[in-house]
């Protein structure tokens, strides 16, 4: 018996999935969730095998929700995004269903999942998906978990990012938040006009820089409005000069 969750903010959309799932006695739906927060809670509580996930939902979207899950389950996306947008995660999710989808298409997706199990393979795929995909909202905000709460940080509030073992610390006026991602991920998803990777372990918001001082040989220090001093490597300095147009 596989245990599944349906996460979608439109009740009728959840109903379609429920209806189509009646043909699969081996899949049990544990709960229907209205948004990402409910979904997150339910995933943590039940540790389901499979999630039917909508992308556009209130507050945090499907991708952002998945980023916050420690051991993500296998995912079948149900979304109205066009194929262009979907290409980003086409290869990595178990499957994606474009709304409105018919029963045959749905059956194919679920059978694909059932053929793929045992589960760990699915999880690994989901993590891979999260590392390579860019959700539409990632240029605008960063979603982090603090304790049991979800915190949404608009990128305008970000001062700088620093690598911290396997995590990245996101520094804001309200303090720093840990995110389970790599520096490369942020370099790819944050707008390069506003954020520059000045060092292997540091990325800064251009707006925050007040001064760049020379420091030792070939290296510099960027002084931020908040007072933080960020090391700038030789290649980082070149990139910085490019973006600032000097």
């Amino acid at each position, binding site marked *: 018996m596989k245990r599944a969750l349906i996460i979608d903010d*439109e009740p009728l*959309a959840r109903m*379609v999935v429920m209806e189509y799932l009646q043909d699969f006695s081996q899949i049990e739906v544990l709960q229907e969730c209205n948004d990402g927060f409910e979904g997150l809670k339910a995933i943590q509580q039940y540790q389901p095998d499979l999630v039917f996930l909508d992308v*556009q939902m*209130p*507050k945090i979207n499907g991708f952002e929700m998945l980023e916050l899950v420690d051991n993500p389950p296998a995912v079948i996306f149900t979304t109205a995004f066009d194929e262009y947008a979907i290409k980003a995660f086409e290869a990595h999710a178990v499957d994606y269903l474009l*709304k409105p989808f018919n029963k045959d298409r749905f059956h194919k997706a679920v059978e694909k999942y059932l053929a793929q199990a045992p589960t760990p393979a699915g999880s690994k795929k989901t993590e891979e998906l999260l590392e390579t995909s860019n959700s539409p909202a990632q240029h605008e905000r960063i979603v982090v978990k603090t304790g049991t709460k979800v915190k949404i940080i608009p*990128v305008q509030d970000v001062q700088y990012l620093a690598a911290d073992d396997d995590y990245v610390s996101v520094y804001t006026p309200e303090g720093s938040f840990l995110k389970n991602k790599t520096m490369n991920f942020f370099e790819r998803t944050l707008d390069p006009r506003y954020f520059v990777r000045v060092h292997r372990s540091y990325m800064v918001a251009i707006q925050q820089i007040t001064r760049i001082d020379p420091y030792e040989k070939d290296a510099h220090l960027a002084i931020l409005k908040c007072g933080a001093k960020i090391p700038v490597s030789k290649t980082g300095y070149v990139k910085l000069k490019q973006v600032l147009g000097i």
Partner: protein
Amino acid sequence: MLCGLIWAGAQSYIVHNSVPNWYIASTDAVVNSLLLAAACWLINNNLRYYQPASGSYLNILIWHGALAAICALGCRWILPLLTSDSAYNKFLINSIFIRAFIDFLAIGWVGMISIIYYSLLDQKENEKRKAEAEKLARDAELYNLRQQLQPHFLFNSLNSINALIGFKPDEARRMIHQLSDFLRGTLKKDDQLLVPLTDELNHLNLYLDIEKVRFGHRLQTEISSDERAKAALLPSMLLQPIVENAIKFGLYDTTGDVTVSIRAEMDGSFLNLIIQNPYDPQTSRPKHGTGFGLRGVQRRLYLLFARNDLMETYANDNIFTTIIKVPQL
């Protein structure tokens, strides 16, 4: 300038025919030409800022006459001060009517050219504004179409219909009709720039009803309008992007119930439209109010009414308010 010189040269030649003295002839010509130039400049400048209504051409004629008389009399008084040749003075007095007449012709000619030139300029300006307004109306229509054909609206609506077909076929059928009425309405609106508020609200209601089926439990709308406001005219499709914006931010910014309210009232010769929706200042502050939707509305209002103060937005206490004033012409 060149014109002035030629004019002065020609005049001194003519005067020389009557008074065989080059000094007197050229002084006469220069003074006369200067006065004439001043009069022409005056006329031209006035017409630049004041376009005569078609009834007031007589006025212009009288003005021209007066200016010509002043020019001629100016010559009559100034020139004797510069020369003391009695034969010339006699000639001057004799020729005053001819001078006045020629001055009148010249001034009238400049005045006519000015009127034509400036009215053409004016017309061009108006046409440009009108063309841009029409283009923007088309853009708004296209934008709306694209909005409605984009996945989040059309495909999610179709998905809802798909769900309803199974267990509530009547509602599914109703939604199909709403959706087609709405899309048809969007397509049809290209030939009229101004529509009565009731029409615009009816169209909006189709859209809101569809969204309510999709988000049923969460979305509420309150629409109210004055009796007088109902007949007021507004540019078609003006409200659509604002309400879409309100719904988008209301539904995707908060997880609770959402009430979008639209209120229309008359204020003197203005139709005031007030649209309110809840939002979360924490997460959406950066992008709010700068989308193409709202900017397009503001630009359209400017092009149609040549005013920049017709749209205002406020954000406080988790409520976002957009106020639109539509002048009633």
